[in-house]
């Protein structure tokens, strides 16, 4: 592989397993090697910090404990995505948020939402069984799906149903009776200290198991009968082949290539059945270990060959752009606005439209969201005062870029080794040629010219893919 090919592959890995990387970072990682980079991503060291929350607190107290200000909570998460040195851990937090979609529209307590996201960071690459237990005990989730209203004598099926339909097995793999029985097993799993938030501000919530409110009689769930509690239900769920298939398909859709939307999975075949089966084998053999299946996927040929086969999610668009242009590496003023940006593109973080999460792939795109994506990226990459854009210009100068074609190629490489189709390339190439060769004696004009080209590239259809 040529050095350029290695850089392009590394750019692919970092887009998918993180939120993109600058040229400088790509070069360092290529020097370290692909498999070594995967290993570092799946098991980040103690010396690799996630977002510096103490620093964020010092400059924006409201984004660490946002209470009732959702956009500050969203800014907190975006700051983590932009600054973390544990990019796959953060990406997995986003993955689990897509799967266990919990919304502040109802929870109305951003502190608890951030606590849930932090739990995803902590358990996201470990055992899926542990994750299911943690999410069953997670206060924001309990409140979101009303398990605090699920009582021994008044069963509320919301959590029990979604656990089966959306969090583990997928629809049509269980009956209405199973929903009921699973719900009964989770009676008594509730919240402690759910104090009304006024006038004292928001109290932190905690998990509480109330034995006296738990249905202590036999349940029959998926053919098994016993006096089951919630953990028993999770154990039975994990025995079902539908479960590993469902989670692996989610992983494939999130990391490899766009699949149809979740409700179609019982009807539409997998995009790459062979890859999916291989993932399922690794997942089951590792006793449902997320790290093992991630390592397998990221090192696989089907992953390496799936470049630009996914439409970027809004969070990826925003975090990837900010990393590229070097904005918000420090909690500078204006951080509140970056919390809003994914919302404008159709992905309000920590506030999905429903417990089903977002419809992904081409459903991210409509005329409104496409405008928001293009405008956001174009505005930033055209701003040559931003450190990341400035270093792109400096590198081109150092490399002695001289022809308009070289300028276009260098811009594409800096936008993630983007590959354009022939027509798009012709239009941009003709436009670049109009201004002739690159004139480094007039650096400010040349900078602007590069910024304009980056902006036009950001407006291409090709750039919408990761």
């Amino acid at each position, binding site marked *: 592989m040529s050095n350029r090919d290695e850089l392009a592959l590394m750019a692919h890995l970092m887009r998918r397993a993180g939120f993109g990387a600058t040229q400088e970072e790509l070069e360092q990682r290529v020097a370290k090697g692909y498999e070594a980079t995967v290993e570092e991503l799946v098991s980040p060291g103690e010396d690799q910090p996630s977002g510096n929350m103490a620093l964020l607190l010092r400059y924006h107290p409201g984004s660490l404990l946002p209470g009732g200000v959702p956009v500050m909570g969203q800014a907190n998460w975006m700051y983590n995505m932009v600054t973390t040195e544990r990019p796959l851990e953060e990406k997995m937090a986003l993955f689990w948020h897509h799967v266990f979609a919990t919304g502040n529209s109802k929870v109305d307590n951003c502190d608890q939402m951030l606590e849930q996201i932090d739990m995803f960071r902590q358990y996201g690459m470990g055992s899926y069984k542990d994750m299911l237990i943690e999410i069953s005990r997670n206060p924001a989730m309990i409140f979101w799906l009303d398990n605090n209203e699920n009582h021994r004598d008044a069963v509320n099926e*919301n959590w029990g149903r979604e656990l089966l339909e959306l969090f583990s097995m997928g629809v049509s793999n269980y009956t209405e009776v199973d929903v009921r029985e699973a719900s009964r097993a989770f009676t008594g799993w509730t919240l402690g200290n759910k104090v009304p938030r006024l006038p004292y501000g928001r109290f932190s919530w905690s998990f509480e198991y109330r034995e006296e409110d738990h249905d202590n009689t036999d349940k029959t769930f998926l053919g098994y009968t016993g006096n089951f509690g919630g953990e028993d239900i999770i154990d039975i769920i994990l025995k079902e082949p539908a479960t590993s298939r469902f989670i692996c398909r989610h992983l494939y859709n999130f990391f490899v290539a766009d699949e149809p939307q979740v409700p179609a999975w019982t009807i539409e075949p997998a995009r790459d059945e062979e890859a999916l089966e291989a993932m399922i084998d690794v997942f089951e053999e590792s006793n449902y270990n997320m790290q093992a299946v991630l390592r397998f996927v990221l090192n696989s040929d089907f992953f390496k060959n799936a470049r630009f086969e996914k439409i970027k999610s809004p969070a990826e668009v925003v975090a990837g752009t900010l990393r590229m242009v070097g904005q918000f590496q420090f909690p500078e003023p204006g951080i509140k606005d970056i919390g809003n940006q994914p919302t404008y593109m159709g992905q309000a973080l920590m506030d999905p439209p429903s417990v*089903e999460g977002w419809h992904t792939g081409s459903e991210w795109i409509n005329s*409104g969201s496409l405008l928001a994506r293009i*405008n956001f990226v174009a505005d930033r990459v055209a701003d040559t005062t931003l450190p990341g854009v400035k270093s792109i210009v400096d590198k081109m100068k150092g490399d002695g870029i001289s022809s308009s074609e070289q300028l276009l190629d260098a811009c594409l490489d800096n936008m993630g080794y983007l590959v354009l189709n022939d027509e798009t390339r012709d239009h941009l190439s003709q436009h670049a040629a109009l201004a002739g060769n690159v004139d480094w004696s007039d650096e400010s004009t040349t900078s602007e010219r590069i910024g304009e080209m980056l902006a036009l590239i950001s407006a291409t259809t090709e750039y919408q893919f990761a």
Partner: protein
Amino acid sequence: MTSTKKDPVIVVLQLTGGNDYFNTVIPYNESLYYDNRPALAIPQEEMLKIDSSLAFNPAMAPVKELYDAGKVAVLHGIGYPDSPRSHFRSMDIWHTCEPDKVGTEGWAGRVTRELDPNKENVLTAINFGHGLPRALAVPGVPVAAIADLGTYGLLTGISDNSQRAKALDIFSKMYSPTVGGSFVTDYLKNTGMDAMVGADIVKVAPEKYSSTVEYPNSSIAQHLRDIAQVYFADLGTRVFYTQHASFDTHAGQGPAHPQLWKDVSEGISAFFQDLEEHDAGDNVIMYLFSEFGRRVHDNGSGTDHGAAGVSFVIGNQVKGGMYGEYPSAKAEDLEQGDLVPNYDFRGAYSSIIEDWIGLDANPIVNGNFEKMSLFK
């Protein structure tokens, strides 16, 4: 301003999350209502009584006013057989009219395709909100999505006009259709072109708008105001779509459900006042629906997913009144504790599509369903 608009227009207002039918239109003489709602029954003295058997939720006073003026049709017991009680599946079914498989085309998108088969107007259908509901999604049919009318446009960051014109020119070249592109790339290109053209046209709407009607600050009222602005600007839009959420009141329904209806009712009221002020009410109807009703018996603080629900059709040309029968709430008549739908939602769509919009409903809703005579 005198209206010259002749073409019938529909505004769809989706009540996302599953609206509680039982506490929206209340069968107040039924003891079963009080028996089943120990935590959530609304006291009779607070209800807005419509007739000798039914009452509106207390938060629906503005809707009651429109009802009393003969402008609201209430469609009882609406739904479809074998409700899966899943939000997503159920919403998909309402959106695509496909109860047995996952549909790829939304009914409102199909209406749009019939209204504008040659795609002459990228603004024939507009969703007001982030993202696009599946009801409007049909491959190849342009639908604009406007989160905020005031800031809608492409490459708006380029302040120099001639530079922006050049950028838009390259954009339109890059997004022009090519042979042999993938489905997704073609979709992106079409969407990009439609967005550019639509944004250019729709920017006149807020500039032309003036009104004395004050809309409340709720998100639904603001969306309805944006809809009024675009409608008054006469841009040929025939299908307006927006939604309000979340009606998924498993818990805390006591305060939550009335607040939702307060926001919706006040928004609707302002919208229709605005139409009257602009003498533009005769060509517009509004259709309200939710993906299902909720369980008959409350769970102590809220209600779980149910089946049969209620829809509303509102407008000057609507024959107001009650349509269909309230499903029986007797224990032996319930299915899994839910009211059983007795009117297929595809019949309501058919009534609107044929009798209001003037299109053949069968290919849009995938079959023939019993219509109601809803319009004057």
